[in-house]
């Protein structure tokens, strides 16, 4: 469905991506794991048209993507950015409806809205509230709900668990799992490698702007090198 070929991106004079190639098949959850500054966000921003590659190409359903963010959204790729970027000045529902900006099928939009509210009952209670007054967790849900409203088939997610409490982190991952059920394909960038590898079908390990390893997620999760670098040596969670 998505194919990235030999992508090179320079960012502020620093070459951030050095020949990335990866692919995402329909219905898959693919995760990209890497340290800070490895180029994960750069990759997503390039796919969604905010950064211009120096070299290489991005193909979606076999076609080269246009180089304008709005046209990329139109072709069916939706990006949930890092830091959520909700419209704090608009109501929650307006935020969701903006997700459906490119759609004109009123009925379908309405039914999708209901679907989102079903998925996030918490949002329904606050539909008229100004989005800026939502808590971090609610904002993340809103950002994800907004992504659903675009009706894109491929969802790019950038650090959805960032800054969230453990309980919410779990919820967010549960929801990503449900997205799969809705027929979405997901490319997930995550700091929380442990959770991401649990959830994903396949994974790529990104280091210094290069892919150093790829494979089925479960396999990578057992790789000792990866365990050491990304999963931490201590046991995790509430156990202490």
């Amino acid at each position: 469905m998505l194919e990235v070929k030999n992508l090179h991106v320079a960012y502020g004079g620093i070459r951030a991506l050095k020949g990335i190639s990866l692919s995402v098949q329909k219905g898959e959850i693919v995760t990209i794991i890497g340290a800070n500054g490895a180029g994960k966000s750069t990759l997503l921003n390039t796919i969604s048209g905010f950064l211009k590659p120096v070299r290489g190409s991005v193909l979606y359903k076999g076609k080269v993507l246009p180089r304008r963010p709005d046209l990329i959204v139109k072709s069916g790729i939706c990006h949930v950015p890092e830091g959520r970027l909700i419209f704090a000045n608009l109501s929650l529902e307006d935020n969701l409806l903006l997700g459906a900006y490119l759609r004109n099928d009123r009925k379908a939009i309405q039914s999708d809205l209901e679907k989102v509210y079903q998925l996030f009952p918490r949002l329904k209670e606050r539909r008229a509230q100004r989005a800026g007054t939502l808590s971090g967790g609610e904002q993340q849900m809103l950002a994800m709900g907004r992504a659903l409203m675009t009706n894109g088939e491929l969802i790019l997610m950038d650090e959805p668990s960032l800054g969230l409490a453990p309980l919410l982190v779990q919820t967010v991952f549960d929801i990503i799992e449900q997205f799969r059920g809705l027929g979405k394909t997901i490319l997930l960038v995550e700091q929380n490698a442990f959770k991401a590898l649990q959830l994903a079908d396949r994974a790529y390990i990104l280091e210094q702007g290069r892919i150093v390893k790829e494979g089925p997620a479960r396999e990578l999760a057992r790789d000792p090198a990866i365990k050491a670098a990304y999963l931490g040596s201590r046991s995790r969670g509430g156990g202490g």
Partner: protein
Amino acid sequence: MAAILHIRDLTKQFGGLTAVDAVSFSVPEGGIVGLIGPNGAGKTTIFNLITGIYRPTSGSIEYRGKSIVGLEPFRIADMGITRTFQNIRLFKNLSVFDNVLTACHLSANYSFAEAILRLPRFRAQEKHLTAKAEELLGIMNLSDYRDLIANNLPYGLQRRLEIVRALALNPKLLLLDEPAAGMNPDETEQLMRLIVRIRDDFGLSVLVIEHHMDLIMGVCEHIVVLNFGEKIAEGSADEISKNAQVIEAYLGTSEEAVDA
């Protein structure tokens, strides 16, 4: 151990919303205390209240036995409380060195005229400030990046620089707001060691907000848990991790612990 910071019945309301509701806890001298809770529980608000950015609706904040409620942020900083921010706030267009040098200003007291006329006291004190800034950068392993513009610093180092800048003020109490956000386990571990080290080397007390449970459980001697602005639990790492209320509101049933 005497408490360096003592918070009692601290309440903050925004309009009709109660962000912090009668929270009390204290930070012992030389201690590392964790402040955890779900997003929107009021943790950062408490930081803003302690540092004087917000004024409490009611309640008291005592620092070394003196109330600091109503003082301006810079006065509170002057007294020895400083902090870092959730979304890093460096002096972005200044070099790493200048970031630290600027924050060293409390260690000098030459006057305006002395500066403009470059009188001996100005030169002596400036020399001292420069030395201090260099030293701090050295201690924190940032000397290599001395002349780099802060904005060009890799993310992890930006966090570290923010801590160095805080240390330049000779604080007695350091508040860290999600210092490990966006760090992987490896980096988090380094950060933990760093926090303990600066506590010991600089004789500080630390209050830290964090979602990385490794860090909280690993370094905090005492943990305060908030939910919806209220304190729901308080205690050692062990006590907290077994507290049913905390698990329900914050930690969740951690299947991952089984898996790992």
